[in-house]
Each structure stands twice: as structure tokens, then as C-alpha cells.
């Protein structure tokens, strides 16, 4: 009550103020003029404040530099000079952002390969691209023009790889991706290689897997980007040519976590199976949770992007079936566990092989991009992710494995 009466007084006061507004405004004009003079004075004496401000800026910069260096692993001021015999290799991939777990897995694979190759004259420069085409373009320009790299391992996401492929091609710099699976990359250029098979194969494999299990009505939930769109096209084409029916195709923006409306449409189509094609762990986890919440009974399949620790940790994805490229030889899986204390992560074996392919070329004396390309064209070795032999498009043929999520771990399933 006390408050309201005070408030009442205040309101009447406001009214009075309104009435005498003109007078006040006239007074104010003078005041403002005084203020201007005062402000000018204060600004003259503002040395102390400016110093504080400079201090804050410096502290902020230090934090930013620290954040930058620790996230990307880059040295900002470290100019190491060009060793006479040094070969520089760039690394491009998401080290921040929602696909960062793939980027870090690939980085670990590359680091292991560098260590194992015992090459002294190779230096890797890491750039963070966040799976974003624009970031990737500035990263590759930096790598090519400033760091003068001869080859690049990356990018991770197909969209980013396709965005920079013409730049690598034009500058005759070899690009070798460990994880970009879009069918488009096959024809991206002569200098573009990859150690992971194209989704043309995985789409066919996935379609056959679903069809062979006796499931005829399939719905597809895919990320609206190069990877998702490419995979979805191949999957649909193959599934329908086998005689199945794709009853719903719904897409989502990378990273979005509210997929209920897409799933509502899928539920309405009453599919027997849902195939999730996603390379964003955020969206994958959300999709799996919401499928369960909405009571969709269909059997759930996923592309290799879903084979990550985050998915395994969710308790909602029991019996999720995943098609995946090779998870590496047992020896490599064990070495990965020993060196990083982590269960094997997607694309790490492919990354190991990517670097090894470059290392073999360098050991054979290749230094420039075109020399490395020539070596890669004729290279053949047995890697940790399978036999590596590039065809005329820089692609490898590959085999796939089927995993099922049981009690929070992915186990190899034989279908």
C-alpha cells in the first residue's frame, strides 16, 4: 500500500511536470549548454580514463590471442623462417563450432601420422574453418599465399571442401580430404584427392542395407548442405530403384536443435525406417531425442556422421544402426586409445592415411604441389583405413561397415 501511494504521488508529480514542461525545457537548454562545456573540460582531463581503456583492450587482446592459439594450435607471432628443405602442409577443418569434434579427431590422426612418419622437414600449419565456406576460403588463401604450403589436408565438411577446391586447383596445391564424402567432389579438380570413399557408394550401401532388412517405406532426415543433399540424392535413387518407396524427405539447417516439425511430417508419412544424414552432432542428438519423445516407432539408421561419442552417450539411441567407413585396423584403434585415451573417433584413420599418402610422396622427393600430385596419382599402399589407391578422379574405392549402438558403445554388426 505504501508503495502504491508513493507511486500515486509520483504520477501526479509527473503530470505537474508535464504542465510545466515548457519552463523546464527552457531551463534545460541552458543546462545542456553548460554540460557541453563541462564535457569538453572532462575530455581534456580524460588521460586517466584513456589509460584504463587501453589496459582493458590489452587484457582483452591477450585473452583473445590465448583463445585463438589454444583453439587453433597456431602461433600468431611465430615466424619460423623457410627452411631450405622444409615442406609445408596446411590443415583445414573445424576446430571450433559444432563440427569441431570431427576436426579434432582428424587433427589427432594427422599428428599421429606425422609422428610415426619421422619426417623432420615437414611442418603442418593448422587453420580453423568451422565447416564454413567463407572461413575456408580465407584459410586457404592464407595457407597458399602466406604460408606457401604445397599440400593441404582438408577440409572436413563437403561444403567447405567444394568452396575451396577451385582455389587449390588454380594454385596447383594438392588437397586431400579425410572426411568429405559428397559425390560432387569426384569432379572437383585434378589436385583434389580424398581417402574416404564418395557417398555414391555409401548411399547405395545404405539403400541395400535398409531394403535387405525387409523395410520398404523409408523417410530421410538430412542436413541441408552439400553432404546431406548429395547423400540423400544417392540414397533415394538407389532405394527406389531397388523397389522401395521414400515416403518423406525432410531437411534441417546444420546445428538446429528443434526438429519436431520435420519429425511430425515424417511421423505422418508412417515410415518403417528413418535414415538420418547429419554431420552436426548437435542436430543428431536432438533428432534422436525427439524421435523417441514423439513416439516414432520406425527403425533408425544413420550416416557415419552419427558415429561419435556424443551419440553413444545419449541413452535414447539404443539400436541405432549406422553405416560407416572403416574405423581403422585393430592395431590403429589400439594405438589411438593409447596415445589419446579416447575410443577411436570417426575419420581419424582416414586422416592418418591422408598424411601418410603425402608423407610417402615427400619421401620420394616431391616438394611442390604438382610433384606431390604426380606421386599421388601412382601411389598404392595399404593404410589403416584400407587399401589406398587413387583413381583418375582422386577418389578411393572403399568398403563400409555396419555398426549398432548397444549399451552406449558401437559394435560391429554383421548383416
Amino acid at each position, binding site marked *: 500500500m505504501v508503495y502504491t501511494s508513493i507511486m500515486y504521488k509520483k504520477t501526479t508529480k509527473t503530470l505537474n511536470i508535464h504542465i510545466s514542461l515548457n519552463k523546464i525545457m527552457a531551463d534545460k537548454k541552458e543546462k545542456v549548454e553548460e554540460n557541453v562545456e563541462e564535457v569538453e573540460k572532462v575530455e581534456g582531463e580524460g588521460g586517466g*580514463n584513456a589509460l584504463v581503456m587501453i589496459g582493458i583492450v590489452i587484457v582483452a587482446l591477450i585473452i*583473445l590471442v590465448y583463445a585463438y592459439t*589454444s583453439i587453433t594450435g597456431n602461433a600468431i607471432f611465430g615466424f619460423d623462417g623457410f627452411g631450405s628443405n622444409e615442406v609445408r602442409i596446411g590443415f583445414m577443418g573445424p576446430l571450433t563450432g559444432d563440427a*569441431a569434434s570431427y576436426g579434432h579427431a582428424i587433427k589427432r590422426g594427422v599428428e599421429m601420422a606425422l609422428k610415426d612418419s619421422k619426417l623432420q622437414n615437414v611442418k603442418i600449419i593448422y587453420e580453423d574453418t568451422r565447416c564454413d565456406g567463407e572461413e575456408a576460403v580465407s584459410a586457404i588463401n592464407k595457407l597458399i599465399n602466406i604460408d606457401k604450403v604445397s599440400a593441404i589436408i582438408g577440409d572436413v565438411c563437403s561444403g567447405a571442401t567444394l568452396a575451396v577446391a577451385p582455389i587449390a586447383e588454380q594454385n596447383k596445391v594438392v588437397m586431400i580430404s579425410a572426411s568429405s564424402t559428397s559425390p560432387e567432389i569426384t569432379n572437383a579438380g585434378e589436385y583434389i584427392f580424398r581417402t574416404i570413399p564418395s557417398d555414391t557408394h555409401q548411399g547405395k550401401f545404405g539403400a541395400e542395407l535398409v531394403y535387405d532388412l525387409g523395410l520398404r517405406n523409408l523417410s530421410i532426415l538430412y542436413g541441408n548442405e552439400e553432404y546431406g543433399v548429395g547423400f540423400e540424392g544417392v540414397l533415394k535413387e538407389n532405394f527406389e530403384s531397388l523397389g522401395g518407396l521414400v515416403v518423406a524427405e525432410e531437411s*534441417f539447417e546444420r546445428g538446429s536443435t528443434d526438429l519436431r*516439425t520435420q519429425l511430425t511430417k515424417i511421423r505422418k508419412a508412417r515410415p518403417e525406417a528413418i535414415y538420418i544424414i547429419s554431420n552436426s*552432432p548437435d542436430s543428431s542428438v536432438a533428432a534422436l*531425442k525427439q524421435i523417441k519423445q514423439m513416439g516414432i516407432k520406425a527403425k533408425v539408421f544413420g550416416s557415419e556422421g552419427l558415429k561419435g561419442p556424443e551419440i553413444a552417450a*545419449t541413452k535414447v539411441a539404443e539400436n541405432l544402426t549406422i553405416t560407416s567407413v572403416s574405423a581403422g585396423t585393430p592395431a590403429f584403434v589400439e594405438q589411438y586409445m593409447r596415445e589419446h585415451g579416447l575410443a577411436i573417433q570417426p575419420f581419424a584413420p582416414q586422416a592418418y592415411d591422408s598424411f601418410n599418402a603425402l608423407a610417402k610422396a615427400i619421401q620420394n622427393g616431391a616438394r611442390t604441389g604438382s610433384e606431390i600430385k604426380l606421386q599421388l596419382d601412382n601411389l598404392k599402399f595399404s593404410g589403416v583405413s584400407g587399401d589406398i589407391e587413387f583413381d583418375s578422379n582422386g577418389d578411393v574405392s572403399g568398403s563400409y561397415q555396419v555398426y549398432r549402438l548397444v549399451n552406449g558403445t558401437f559394435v560391429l554388426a554383421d548383416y
Partner: protein
Amino acid sequence: MSSLLLQLTLNGLVAGSIYSLVASGFSLIYSTNRFMHFAHGVIVILAGYILFSFYSLIGFSFYYSVLSTLIYSSFIGFLINKTIYSPLQKKKTSSVILLIASISLLILFQNLIQLFFGAGVKDIDYIDIQKGLEFYEATITQLQIITIIISSILCVGLFIFMKKTSLGKEMRAVSNNKELADIVGINSSKVKDLSFFIGSFLAGLAGILISLEQNVSPSMGTNLIIKGFTGAVIGGISSVPASIFGSYIIGLVENLGIAFLPSGFKEAISFFLLFIFLLFRPEGLASLRRRVK
């Protein structure tokens, strides 16, 4: 078709409730401070991670964790204002600079969080994910019902607070005309602090609900603040009830829209709406009412 529409309306209401929690805080802060506090998204992310640390990592009880998350988020918002914005405002910095400062804060905090917690998705394992309640062939989980209820209670509460209490009136006075409010003896800097406190409390609540409903990741805040901002602009950014209304519109339109359009258009629909409003009704829906008056 009707069951589909019912489900989509429910989806829209859930999305709208969460957007409105973000938007109401955002527009509360905008109305008293007159600049876009995009770092509001930071509070949402931080709330998710504080809850994750307290409940999942340290193992405090759930209600204690929620309570302290709310207190911490309110204080962080308050401190951001005290340490970053107020000194800038004292120098009469333009609102563009403040806007840039707030965006940099958002990026800075996102990266700091990633530094400490890693980029992966975190799961607050409090609610067992199971099939939601079903009525008329539409499903809704208990948490989603709670989200809608909490958000509506808060919106009504905020409305009453702004209209009836003296503090709320002071806030509206500052928002309406800061100089006049100063003249009648309202302590406008206190009101600004308070708006940050309440706004961040709401953002903290949104963060908690989101992290329970979906998951916690460093990038969760940006998307939400964009949607909250869109809702606020459509409703009318300087009026809290209007921006709540706008957020519900965004939630409903984007979810109902993709019943008829391919789902790839979901984000496009809300931004299309934002464009239309920026072009023809930059004052938002609130301006319509004012015009009628």
C-alpha cells in the same frame, strides 16, 4: 490433417515459449538501455553450462543446481552491464559501439566456453527421455508442458510487474523518456541495473529449459538470440509484452509454415517475416495499436 495441425501448433507454442523467454529479457534491456544486447545469448549458454557443471559434473541436487544457475546468470548479466556497458555509456559511446561490444562478448564467451568444456554436445541427464503424453494423436512431453506454463506465467508476471509495481513503472518511465525520468527523481542507473538483472534471470531460465529439453553446446546461444531478436522486432522491440507476442508468432509461423513448404524453408520463413517487418513496420506490431489510439 487436423492432428498434424494440432501437433504443429504445439511445436510452435513450445518454440514460441522459449523464444519469448529470450525475447522478453532482450527487449526489457533494450527498452531501458536503448541498445541491442546481443551478449544476452551468452547468458543462455552460460546457464546451460552452469547447470551442467553443478548437476552433472559436481553432482549437486537438481533443484539446488537450478536455483544457483538462476542466481549466477542474473549476476553475470548484471556484471556484464557494470563492467562493460556502463563505463562505455558513461563516455557517451554511441549505441553502435555498444552493439559491436555485445557481439564481441558473445563470440568471446562462446570461445571461452569451448576452451573449458570442449566443442562436443553435453547432455544434462536429468529427465529420462521417453515418449511424450498423447492426446488427439499429438504428442507433447511433460517438460514441454512445463516450459509453456513457466513461460506464460512469467510473461503475465512480467506484464503485471511492468504495469502495477513502482519498480515496473520506473522502468517504463526510463524506457519512455530517460531525461524526464531523471528529472522526476527516478534513479535511472539503478533501473538499468535492474533490467539487466531481470532480463538475465529470464535468459537463465531459457537456458535451463533448453538444456533440459535439447542439449548443451557452445553454439546454442547464437541461434536463440537471433530468433529472440526476430521475435522482439516483429512484436515491437521496445515493448516487453509486444516482443513476447512476436516470439509466439515466430514460433507458430515457422512451424506451421513448413507443414505446407519443404522443411528446408523453416529458417527462411522467420527471416522473411523479419525482412517484411523491418521494411514496412520497423516499430513492430506494437505500432499498429499505437496508431489505432
